[in-house]
């Protein structure tokens, strides 16, 4: 033991690596591990998104945050693409709008989104995005699937008619609450969110009744029982929980 031990304990932190890039022509910078979406939001450049929530892992499920990388012309999801030195990102163009609108139309066509009789009417991220992106009709045929409503839980309910498979519920239940009650079964248009081993929610042995999934649902798929049409309100809780968890560590 010839080398003198440092008085500072704990893991050695690598020096932060900074990358500089252009987003929509603006010079911006971020840490090497950050994604395009994170850096864009830090610089008040908004990118449409439905599955991404700050505080949960990013999965790139909804694809609405597609942005164009100028050098290659490729479209990549901003929420799961890390920034690179010298990168030039375009967040809005005719081409991107075309793709985003098609994606929205497919989401609307895949389940039964009847805004007029939905608990989330007026407070739905899907509905608001349709308005913002100017989606005035759906060009693909509606699938009108026969999907159930599970109201077996004593306070909460899931209406699969409104689910867009963003998996925010699955992630918050696993990553924040630690219960992992929610998961996804099936593939493609047959995919459904399920509780435990596809038991009724009311019979779930793992659900802690915390309601985090309900608060994060972007549409009217998850709601508190007794909520009537257009009555649903969400409370913002994740930023506070995330901040507290950071302090704790």
């Amino acid at each position, binding site marked *: 033991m010839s080398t003198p031990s440092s008085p500072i304990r704990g893991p050695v932190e690598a020096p932060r690596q900074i990358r500089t890039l252009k987003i929509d022509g603006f010079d911006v910078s971020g840490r090497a591990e950050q994604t395009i979406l994170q850096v864009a939001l830090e610089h008040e450049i908004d990118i449409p998104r439905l599955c991404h929530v700050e505080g949960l892992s990013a999965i790139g499920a909804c694809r609405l945050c597609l942005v164009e990388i100028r050098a290659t012309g490729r479209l990549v999801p901003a929420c799961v693409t890390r920034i690179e030195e010298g990168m030039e990102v375009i967040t809005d163009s005719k081409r991107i709008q075309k793709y985003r609108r098609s994606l929205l139309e497919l989401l*609307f066509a895949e389940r*039964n*989104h*009847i*805004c*007029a*009789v*939905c608990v989330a*009417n*007026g407070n739905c991220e899907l*509905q*608001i995005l*349709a*308005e*913002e992106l*100017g989606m*005035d*009709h*759906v*060009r693909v*045929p*509606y699938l*009108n*699937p*026969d999907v159930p409503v599970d109201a077996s839980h004593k306070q909460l309910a899931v209406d699969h008619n409104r689910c867009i498979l963003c998996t925010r519920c699955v992630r918050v239940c696993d990553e924040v609450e630690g219960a992992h009650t929610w998961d996804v079964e099936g593939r493609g248009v047959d995919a459904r969110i399920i509780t435990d081993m596809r038991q009724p929610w009311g019979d779930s042995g793992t659900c802690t009744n915390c309601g985090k999934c309900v608060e994060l649902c972007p549409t009217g798929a998850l709601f508190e029982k007794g909520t009537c049409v*257009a009555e649903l309100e969400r409370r913002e809780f994740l930023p506070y929980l995330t901040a507290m968890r950071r302090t704790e560590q």
Partner: protein
Amino acid sequence: MSKARVATAWLEACSGCHMSFLDMDEGLLELAELIELVYSPLVDAKEFPEQVDVTLLSGGVGNEEQLELVRHIRPRTKLLVSLGDCAVTGNVPAMRNHIPVEQLLERTFVQEADLNPGAPEAVVSPLRPKVQPLHNFVEVDEYIVGCPPDAELIKFIVSELLQGRIPGRGVRSRFG
């Protein structure tokens, strides 16, 4: 200046869009200076006339008679407007779409009937398998979403169309 020939009709809908149209209050007087209402549930004409300038259609297509009417109207109007969520998406009437028609009629007119059980076979038009938006059948020039669309929005879009402008997606309006 001669008045523009305007028509309205409702298909698989609740009449709410027409109520919203009437809800423009004194705006109706301004509009009356510019248009002649040649066919509508609000006037007495029985036949859809020729050479209409603008037609507002509310409601989706849910039975054979409605489909016939839509196909009758399209070549007789310069501009066709899908008015309201039912015309644009199918909306509430389309909530029956996942149920087979026979099952639907059996439940409604036989199982739930107190008197004379049996689905109607005459006078009313047979249901189509699904309630579908207008643009699935004919070309639509303008979409006005909302359940119902705001009266001011209807007024604005009709005025634009009468002046030869198609607002399209330049107008922000919300489903529901």
